[in-house]
């Protein structure tokens, strides 16, 4: 039995919770694993630092919270500063490279950046930055299959926006795959 713990952090309004929902739904509904999502409630989800936490496992998840993520995805500097100390020593960090400077990164952490907001602006819809990031996530680790993530994007976004969001997803995915062809990443799935 192995469980992989993920934390996604950013500012309220960046779609951090939706990104977590897409990853969790992809893993549980389309990849048929167990995935438990918890999220920040209260004022932090409405403008300041907020986070979604997902545990993906081959067995039912008992304790639902993430304290030491194997994978950290950050969309703001504040979230980076706040959450990076929690990352396991050999963890994977994915970050919004225009908004986050990964200073004082612990040794051993594998890290990749993507200018997801800039890519989203190419679609004239900066709000799909989170979906670009989910595509990037799909490229950089094999935890949730790309097919499951795509289906989950389609099922999770408002009706009528599927094409836009899938294009955003593919942009992030392609950027990640191109990076991969230059430097191989570790697969972030480790026993707890």
């Amino acid at each position: 039995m192995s469980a992989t713990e993920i934390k996604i952090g950013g500012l309220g309004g960046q779609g951090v919770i939706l990104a977590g929902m897409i990853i969790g739904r992809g893993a549980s509904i389309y990849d048929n694993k167990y995935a438990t999502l918890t999220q920040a409630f209260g004022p932090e989800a409405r403008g300041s630092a907020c986070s979604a936490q997902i545990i993906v496992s081959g067995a039912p998840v008992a304790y639902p919270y993430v304290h030491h993520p194997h994978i950290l995805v950050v969309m703001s500097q504040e979230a980076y500063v706040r959450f990076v100390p929690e990352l396991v020593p050999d963890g994977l960090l994915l970050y919004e490279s225009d908004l986050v400077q990964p200073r004082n990164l612990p040794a051993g952490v594998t890290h990749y950046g993507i200018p997801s907001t800039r890519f989203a602006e190419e679609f004239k819809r900066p709000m799909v930055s989170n979906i670009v990031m989910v595509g990037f996530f799909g490229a950089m680790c094999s935890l949730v299959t790309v097919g499951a993530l795509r289906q989950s994007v389609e099922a999770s976004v408002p009706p009528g926006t599927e094409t836009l969001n899938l294009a955003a997803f593919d942009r992030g995915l392609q950027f990640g795959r191109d990076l991969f062809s230059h430097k191989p990443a570790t697969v972030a799935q480790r026993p707890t």
Partner: protein
Amino acid sequence: MVSGKQDGVLTGAFYLDGDHACAEGAIAAGCNFVAGYPITPSTEIVERLAQRFPQAGGTFIQMEDEIASSIAIQGAVWGGAKAMTVSSGPGISLMMEHIGLAAMAEVPCVIVNVQRGGPSTGLPTLPAQADMMQARWGSHGDYEIIALCPNSPQECFDLVIRAFNLSEQYRLPVLFMMDEVVGHMTEKVVIPPRETLTIVPRRYTQLSPAEYLPFRAGPDLVPDIVKAGDGYRFHVTGLTHDERGYPVMNAGCQDGLVRRLVDKVRKNADKIQQFDADQLEGADVVVISYGITSRVTMRSVQEARARGVKVGHLRLIVVWPFPETLIRKLATQVRGLVVPEINLGQMVLEVERCAGGHCKVVPVPHAGGAVHDPALITEAIVEAAR
């Protein structure tokens, strides 16, 4: 989402939080009337019902407050509806008078409490399990209720259906005791086709209007019901009443009525109780937990077993009526019973009462606002085993 349509019961696999799953469970149970005054962390339940009821054939009314909500559902029941109200601690406190009325007038209904930190307005967005005694004893006078504690979104769906079934079977208010974490946690929820669900229908009388007495109970101590407009004469009151439903205020009538209200639960307790037992046989220590704390406990139990402790886990699914017989028996077989809960000692009092000094009873209290650190429960298990 696998299949699913936007009307009636959604069938398929969904990724839902506990609040939404509870709303879907209510719809699947046939609930068609909900009155409420939205309050965190239960708001998503009524949000979803307000959105879904127009297609599913139900009515949601946002009332002026919780007092009105808890009486509107009872009027709806007498009109033939299957009804529920939804709130959290501050609102449940306001509903207490009407929960007593529902017990007294034997109104089948479900009251959902997504527990948050208290007292008073406390911690709106953070969990607690501190309304467990209020659920049992919150209204005045002698009465019994039934209370269930789900620990996952799937159970929010499954068990709210059972809550409706129990309310119909025993004609009483059933309290559905969720908590903030269970309400806001998202997991896969599998919703089976409606025809495979067990739904207990309302026990409408088979008697003619001439023969029928609204509060004459059968052998299971529960009277059959009628609804307004079917041509039966009935009278509903919070006053002590006879089989006709008419106020009769003397000690004899009180004794017959109130004993029956209490006995219909106590004497059927073994049919109502529900729990998960994990390795109770041969255990030196048993942890007794419920709701979200049961999931934290699963990790602690695993850790304690890895340290060589023979520990069992009893998860209460139906918390009221309390499984007295089982706890009495366990107390004679183990060295210690460990009771973690997100309050400063509520259900542990029941455990102590039933243990009767036969074994150690170790509370693991938490004032609320978070779940336990699993290590705290592990330490209590290890300590109790010594």
